[in-house]
């Protein structure tokens, strides 16, 4: 049977094998592993069968603890069973994992390795979670790339059935779990070739059955527990050899050869890096580059981390090795060193007296930390580590990739060191989470990966805002296998899918000479040049960038796509990138649209088709003049009035320069100031509400439903408007509770509004002469921005209403109270935040909040800014995100 080339991500690769080789999947969602469960569920819903011809049962449980319990039960009754998890979810499985291992039960857990919540939660990738399970007695097998995920998932499944040791098969969260890569898909014959039926039957036979009753899980006492614990030793001793044999069998079937420890590099290498996970790919690429420059370097990729075979490890190294850097993607505060470093030291200490030990002198071994929470790990950093090893006394317990100005652990490196080769396509696409850029790019990769003989890789960077979040897509195509497990910093193609992002990021800073730049703009090809900031103009001229422009927003509007400009920009990309002939590209995009949106109905598909056709005729190349006439004024990231911490730390994170912040800039214990969203003027709304005082009945319903506290009423004295800005509006207050002449004002924070329209929908007051005109109506944000910014500042300076005078228990009264939850990153039109805001208005000055992990903990506590705010007396809600599972 031929093997298919597929363009999929690590999660899908793992789910594919897991679904083929199991009967039961007990699942629970946790980022970044959820997609594995979703794939398994969808495969079963589609009626896909495993290699034994049955459709696996997929059961969602109430927690990871529950999933692990269900797995244990299913295994104990003899079913081939698996689960997928990460981070705290894996930790919740630990109690069951001890039991599963203690009972010598065959299973594989597929883990997209992720940071643990410590000073803060992080959804991103490192090995903190899997390292926390290394005492459970499970075998641990690492996959470093999407192809390896598919391969190792199968090797793990085959090995566990032979060894009776349960396996964690893990790969780096996001970097591998969400990287889309063109890989070879194993077929059913391959998989069957790796699993003997007799192993499966033996596994079932060990399952409990009342026809042959046994008892497992006794309570043992001091007399025998210890001895009972030692019975398993032969199984652990046998495992490394069995896994190696399984890898050899795999090599015969699939042609890809793996070892427990794979050495790569010079035969006479003196400096070696030992590493596990996706970082190994980048090291391999760097080693190639350094070998070409005549350096004697190498690397050891640890694949089977548990059981750790000292003999195999020592034998993997060339005898010439003088210095070793062991890189851990985790942190064990207070330990003698991180786990892999300690294992390597132990390995040398133990192997010294063994016959297989081949070193005259024990190499110098240092340990280092890298890549926590998906921190970039680049060839430049790797070169920095190899360079450090040249020194007589290289730094031990170092960090790489950050600036540690507190305990001075960090190594310096030259950021200009690159390994990328010319000729390969490297594209960066800047967009918003809501505009579909990522979805379109995933389609593009599939189109190119599956439609050409190019290798293809896609990786997607998100911030965690739920509305107006920015995304950066990193796409690589080329004839050679792609090992770049890091972001693109020299791009041959750059697309900006949101005009506003020009201000926020220096989008062309990563453009290489002769790159192509595609921009969507409300300005046409003749107007755009003068509107560009000068530093953009300069880069376009200096780097000889080919510049294209399209008004995708208008095309989207006219073709009924609403705010989704993804298909339009994707079409432009294909039209100018030249990867396919234009007509062929368009046909392929349409095919992809059918596949992606087919289940949403024909209308959606047709709309997308139309958008594709309109895109091409609205795309123009800009004649680049040599004159630099753009403005040199850069927008302030936060207003000058912002506090020092916001200026120095928050603003840097907002500007996308958080990576450069040193350790000393960080709060030591995860404590951050509240009330900082007010400084992040996001300007993400295309349209904002405009108030018509003459129609308004002052019911305040608009303020109640606003998810972002961006429309607010106040009651004030008439003299408060003595020095008011020109365009401010106010009107006599309705209601007997107010003194005569009191004024009512309804003000919109147009820079914070997300344009969701809920307020306009909620407004019950209409103009009797024109029923389509309400007391608030949406209008373009851009022309209002400057005047309304001034009005908003004036409004916030107006005194808050005296709480004693307000009927807080009414809709109208409650909305006169200051919201102490404002401008969160929640979705446009969020249904949750109006309730949260209401609570903050009613009780905010005395609230203590425990927030379970979920949307509310993310829009409530996701950096850079925090929406929980303070009143003028400095009081306000104080907040902590407990864990998901025990918030109450």
């Amino acid at each position: 049977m031929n093997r298919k080339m597929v363009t999929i991500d690590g999660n899908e690769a793992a789910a594919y094998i897991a679904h083929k080789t199991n009967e039961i999947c007990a699942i629970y969602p946790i980022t970044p592993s959820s997609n594995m469960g979703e794939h398994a569920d969808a495969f079963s819903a589609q009626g896909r069968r495993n290699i034994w011809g049955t459709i696996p049962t997929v059961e969602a449980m109430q927690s990871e603890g529950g999933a692990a319990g269900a797995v244990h039960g299913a295994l104990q009754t003899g079913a081939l069973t698996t689960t997928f998890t990460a981070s705290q979810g894996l930790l919740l499985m630990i109690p069951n994992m001890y039991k599963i291992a203690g009972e010598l039960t065959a299973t594989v857990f597929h883990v997209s390795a992720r940071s643990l919540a410590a000073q803060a939660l992080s959804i991103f990738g490192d090995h903190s979670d899997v390292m926390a399970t290394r005492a459970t007695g499970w075998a641990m097998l690492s996959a470093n790339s999407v192809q390896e995920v598919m391969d190792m998932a199968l090797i793990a499944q085959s090995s566990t059935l032979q060894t009776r040791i349960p396996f964690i098969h893990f790969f780096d969260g996001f970097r591998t779990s969400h990287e889309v890569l063109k890989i070879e898909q194993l077929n059913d014959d391959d998989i069957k070739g790796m699993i003997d039926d007799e192993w499966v039957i033996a596994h079932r036979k060990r399952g409990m059955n009342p026809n042959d009753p046994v008892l497992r899980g006794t309570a043992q006492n001091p007399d025998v527990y210890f001895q009972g614990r030692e019975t398993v030793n032969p199984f652990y001793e046998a495992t490394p050899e069995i896994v190696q044999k399984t890898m050899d069998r795999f090599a015969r079937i699939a042609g890809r050869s793996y070892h427990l420890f794979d050495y790569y590099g010079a035969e006479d290498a003196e400096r070696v890096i030992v590493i596990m996970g996706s970082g190994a790919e980048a090291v391999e690429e760097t080693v190639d580059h350094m070998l070409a420059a005549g350096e004697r370097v190498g690397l050891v990729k640890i694949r089977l981390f548990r059981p750790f075979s000292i003999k195999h490890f020592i034998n993997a190294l060339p005898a010439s090795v003088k210095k070793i850097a062991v890189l851990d993607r985790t942190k064990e505060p207070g330990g003698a060193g991180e786990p892999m470093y300690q294992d390597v030291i132990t390995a040398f200490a133990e192997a010294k007296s063994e016959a297989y030990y081949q070193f005259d002198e024990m190499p110098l071994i240092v340990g280092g930390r890298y890549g926590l929470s998906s921190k970039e790990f680049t060839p430049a950093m790797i070169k920095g580590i190899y360079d450090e090893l040249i020194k007589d006394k290289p730094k031990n317990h170092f960090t790489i990739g950050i600036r540690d100005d507190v305990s001075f652990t960090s190594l310096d490196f030259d950021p200009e060191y690159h390994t990328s080769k010319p000729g390969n396509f490297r594209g960066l696409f800047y967009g918003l989470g809501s505009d579909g850029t990522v979805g379109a790019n995933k389609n593009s990769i599939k189109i190119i990966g599956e439609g050409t003989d190019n290798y293809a890789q896609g990786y997607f960077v998100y911030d965690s805002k739920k509305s107006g979040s920015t995304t950066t897509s990193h796409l690589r195509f080329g004839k050679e296998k792609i090992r770049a497990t890091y972001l693109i910093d020299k791009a041959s193609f750059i697309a900006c899918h949101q005009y506003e992002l020009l201000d926020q990021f220096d989008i062309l800073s990563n453009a290489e000479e002769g790159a192509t730049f595609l921009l969507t703009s409300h300005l046409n090809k003749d107007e755009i040049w003068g509107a560009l900031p000068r530093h953009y103009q300069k880069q376009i001229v200096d780097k000889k960038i080919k510049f294209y422009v399209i008004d995708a927003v208008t095309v989207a509007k006219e073709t009924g796509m609403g705010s989704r400009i993804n298909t339009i920009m994707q079409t432009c990309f294909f039209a100018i990138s030249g990867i396919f002939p234009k007509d062929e590209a368009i046909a392929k995009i349409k095919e992809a649209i059918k596949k992606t949106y087919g289940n949403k109905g024909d209308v959606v598909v047709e709309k997308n088709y139309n958008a594709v056709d309109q895109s091409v005729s609205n795309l123009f190349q800009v004649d680049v003049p040599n004159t630099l006439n753009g403005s040199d004024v850069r927008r302030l990231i936060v207003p000058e009035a912002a506090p020092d911490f916001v200026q120095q730390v928050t603003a840097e994170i907002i500007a996308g320069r958080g990576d450069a912040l040193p350790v000393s800039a960080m709060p030591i214990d995860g404590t951050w100031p509240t009330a900082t969203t007010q400084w992040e003027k996001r300007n993400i709304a295309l349209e904002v509400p405009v108030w018509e005082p003459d129609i308004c009945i002052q019911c305040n319903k608009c303020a109640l439903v606003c998810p972002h506290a961006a429309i607010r009423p106040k009651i004030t004295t008439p003299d408060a408007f003595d020095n008011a800005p020109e365009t401010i509006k106010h009107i006599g207050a309705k209601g007997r509770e107010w003194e005569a002449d009191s004024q009512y004002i309804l003000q919109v924070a147009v820079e914070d509004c997300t344009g969701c329209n809920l307020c306009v929908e909620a407004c019950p007051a209409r103009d009797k002469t024109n029923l389509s005109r309400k007391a608030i109506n949406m209008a373009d944000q851009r022309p209002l921005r400057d005047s309304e910014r001034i009005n908003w500042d004036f409004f916030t300076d107006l005194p808050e209403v005296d709480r004693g005078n307000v009927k807080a228990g009414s809709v109208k009264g409650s909305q006169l109270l200051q919201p102490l939850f404002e401008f969160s990153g929640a979705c446009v039109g969020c249904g949750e935040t109006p309730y949260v805001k209401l609570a903050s208005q009613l009780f905010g000055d005395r609230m203590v909040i425990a927030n379970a992990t979920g949307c509310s903990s993310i829009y409530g506590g996701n950096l850079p800014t925090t929406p929980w705010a303070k009143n003028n007396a400095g009081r306000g809600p104080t907040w902590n995100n407990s864990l998901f599972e025990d918030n109450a």
Partner: protein
Amino acid sequence: MGYRLTIDKHREHAIELMELLQDEIGSELVTAITSASQANEPEIFEQRARVKEMTDIVERLDTPLARQLLSVADNLVKKSVWIMGGDGWAYDIGFGGLDHVIASGKDVNILVLDTEVYSNTGGQKSKATPLGAVAKFAAAGKPSPKKDLGMIAMSYKNVYVASVAMGSNDGQTVRAFMEAEAYPGPSIIIAYSQCIAHGIDMTKGMNQQKLAVESAYWTLYRYNPLLAAAGKNPLLLDSKPPKTHVREYAMNEARFTILKRINPKMSDHYLEESDLAAKEKYDYYAKLAALSYDKA
């Protein structure tokens, strides 16, 4: 829960310390502080002033006891303890803890932002997901109905329970928040929250809330144990009798219409069953709300 324990413990300890320092502080002020009911905002503001007066005195003492008292004195002013989370937490993974806390009788407020799926991880089904809705982990439509969390909470009798949907009845929402916070025991508010995972036009979110209540898909009620103590029925049904089929609500949401396309027969079956269950639930709640609590 931990917050409540600290606040209660530190309040208790602050009172003990004030009593030891009674001569310096003045017994009148100590009594005023310890006996303040702090039942509403003006009373809380008065208590803040009293505590400030007391701490001003104590600050001047500069003794070990005084320093101890200053470190816990903030807890003499009422604080509002809130536990917030979504339905994935409240119905599933955190339910054991939530159940324990509402059973404890402690004065905490729980806000359940019920989007009927795990929104943060991308929309996987929870036990709050309704019958027949397509979600991740329920690609073929969820075959079991939503759990009635409010009914479980009400079974404790001493828990304030409210089910709200501000797009349907905003006044009821505000009243529920006020009552929940004022109730001197555990309170839980289950708040209908539209979500992008529902596959709706988000500008119409509040309208969906309205349709949800009109069809009895969602029920508005408040259960206040203080009413039972006063001899009245604790359950106030705030929803009006249903006037539309659940279909009117569901067919605006992709989570239901997807199934209509991929499996129309199942979709119809689920919608009929949902409608029947919604009406039955409304009737049941109406009967409960009509029960006599007259002790005579």
